[in-house]
């Protein structure tokens, strides 16, 4: 299947942290021959893929299945739902957004009309704890027929291709899932392990368990990372840019990546003629934070697609970044497994 079509399908699946079943099933249904799957107690999916040769070093490629979302905490007597964010959702991405509940129903996160609040309040985003989910129920009793506290929701957002870019929800990290799924279809030169993790957005929880089980020598974490390449933002504040290829990080808030590995990746990209860039800010974090501290330590590298408006209903990536990222991942996996 075409990669873009797979990204679209994965983006439209609902898999908030702790509730990743739909994404896992999607991947499980597309395992090729020669792949052996195991689902661990947390819901991580671990796939070993036989290659043409036995690997000298065990290489784990991983991407997380979960997305940011909301969990219903309380039903008000007026039928509105209180919620807590699952994962780090910036206040600007909540108010006035549509969501899809676990049962398929639609809800909206309302905002008191700006006409009715003081001038000063119009300049601030409401905090999540002051917001409500409205599912069109007029009483708690009516709402209880459709939702229970503990039910989850995710952003409801169409998948749109525009001007060479893609907009959708959960591209963080369904794009990573789609890239690994694509790699998995090809028989690799050396054996590889593919891991699809749960609960990244709520503290890299799945990756900790999975990395212990897999016990790799090397890990390649396939992610999306914040691009601030907007009009009016200059220099290093742009962090990374769409259309300039995969992002190889030297450091973020959770991991200091081994210099030798970082340099090796940059050199490899240059040798192979693959466009690549680094992050010009020490910001964000990903499953590497858990993986690189696993057992006695794992040599870990994050390879990310630059993505605008991360953790919002409208993540935006560039189509032309996909193939270079795949090429770099293949090249790195092969070299590391070769030992």
């Amino acid at each position: 299947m075409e990669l873009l079509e797979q990204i679209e399908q994965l983006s439209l699946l609902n898999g908030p942290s702790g509730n990743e079943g739909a994404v896992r099933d999607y991947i499980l249904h597309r395992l090729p021959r020669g792949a052996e799957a195991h689902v661990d107690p947390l819901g991580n999916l671990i796939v070993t893929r036989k290659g043409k040769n036995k690997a000298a070093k065990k290489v784990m490629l991983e991407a997380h299945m979960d997305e940011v979302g909301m969990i219903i905490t309380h039903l008000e007597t007026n039928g509105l739902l209180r919620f807590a964010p699952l994962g780090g959702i910036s206040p600007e991405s909540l108010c006035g957004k549509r969501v899809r509940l676990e049962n398929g129903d639609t809800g909206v996160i309302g905002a008191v009309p700006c006409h009715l609040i003081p001038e000063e309040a119009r300049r601030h985003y409401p905090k999540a704890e002051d917001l409500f989910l409205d599912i069109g129920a007029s009483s708690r009793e009516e709402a209880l027929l459709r939702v229970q506290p503990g039910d989850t929701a995710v952003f409801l957002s169409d998948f749109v291709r525009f001007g060479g870019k893609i907009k959708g929800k959960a591209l963080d990290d369904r794009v990573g899932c789609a890239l690994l799924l694509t790699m998995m279809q090809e028989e690799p030169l050396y054996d590889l392990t593919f891991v699809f993790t749960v609960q990244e957005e709520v503290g890299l929880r799945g990756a900790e368990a999975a990395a212990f089980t897999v016990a790799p020598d090397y890990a390649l974490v396939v992610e999306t990372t914040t691009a601030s390449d907007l009009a009016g933002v200059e220099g290093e504040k742009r962090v990374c840019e769409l259309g300039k290829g995969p992002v190889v990080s030297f450091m973020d808030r959770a991991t200091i990546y081994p210099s030798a590995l970082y340099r090796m990746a940059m050199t490899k990209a240059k040798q192979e003629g693959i466009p690549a860039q680094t992050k010009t800010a020490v910001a964000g974090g990903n499953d590497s934070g858990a993986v690189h501290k696993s057992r006695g330590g794992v040599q870990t590298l994050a390879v990310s697609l630059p993505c605008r408006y991360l953790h919002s209903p409208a993540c935006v990536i560039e189509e032309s970044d996909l193939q270079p990222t795949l090429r770099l991942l293949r090249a790195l996996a092969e070299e590391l497994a070769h030992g």
Partner: protein
Amino acid sequence: MFDLLQCLRELTALPTPSGREEAALPWLQSYFSPLGAAVEADRFGNVLAVFGTGKTLLDAHIDKIGLVVTGMDPQGFLHAAPVGRADTRVLAAADMTVYTAKKEFFAVAASVPPHLRGQTVYDAPPAEDLLFDIGFCGESLPPDIEPGDRLLFRPSFHTLSDGVVTSPYLDNSAGAAVLLLTAFLLSERGALSDLAFCFSAQEEAGLRGASPAVFQLRPEKAFVVDVSFARQPGAREEHTAEQGSGPMIGFSPALDHDLSRALRSLAEEKNLPHTAEIMGGATGTNADVISKAAGGRKTALLSIPIRNMHTPVETVRLSDIENTARLLADAIERGL
């Protein structure tokens, strides 16, 4: 049969930003011409559907609050300014459509991240910092986008529960739907005569279209239909009405007190749910203008309670639209 859901779906998706309401004419013509009305757009962009003398005016504004393109950046971002009272708190990551003379483009509302603006994550961007990501950059920039082109929230119509829907621009698609349903009810009763339906332009830009419309039509009496505030957390009880409680009958110095009272009595007589919306001064609707333009006339205001006004997730209860249309049709038939 009148399909209210389909009517709302189409109205909310009509690209009628304030000042560029041209798309309203063909759509309204296809509805009103078969009913026997003379339908035309006036020089201001108001669409008028007139039956007979048109001495009673029914008004609902057809324009939508949006933004106007002020410039384009070579990196593929549009700069834009609000037209009317845009709420910058709900723009981030919203799906937008850019309407140009030739075609439409998709855009994502963006803004420079707060930490780069030297602000906290809770500070909404000032309007001048708004950006719209159209995905194109450098040499692939679309040549068709020009300053003056308009941005609206991308149509997104969903049912929340039986009888409750959400969409951008229920303000004032809900009011326009009331007028269409009223015309339908009156035509069924054979009482569609001497009425002027005005779908006015540029209400959101400052109640600008209503006065030229009244100058031309010279109605003796007017009923204005708009949306108002439904009860929701953070909004004061006296400013709002519960959704499902029927039309909000306006009482204000700008409105004719006897006409408002007559509407209330009629609603009681017909057993239609209703509430009163009391406003100390102006109503903030076209009624303020229509009541005093071209010599003035007795004017009433019926409002439909919606939540989250001026956001992409306005919500309305369909029964409120239906009951407003019933009351209005009864009022016309009774000759209030």
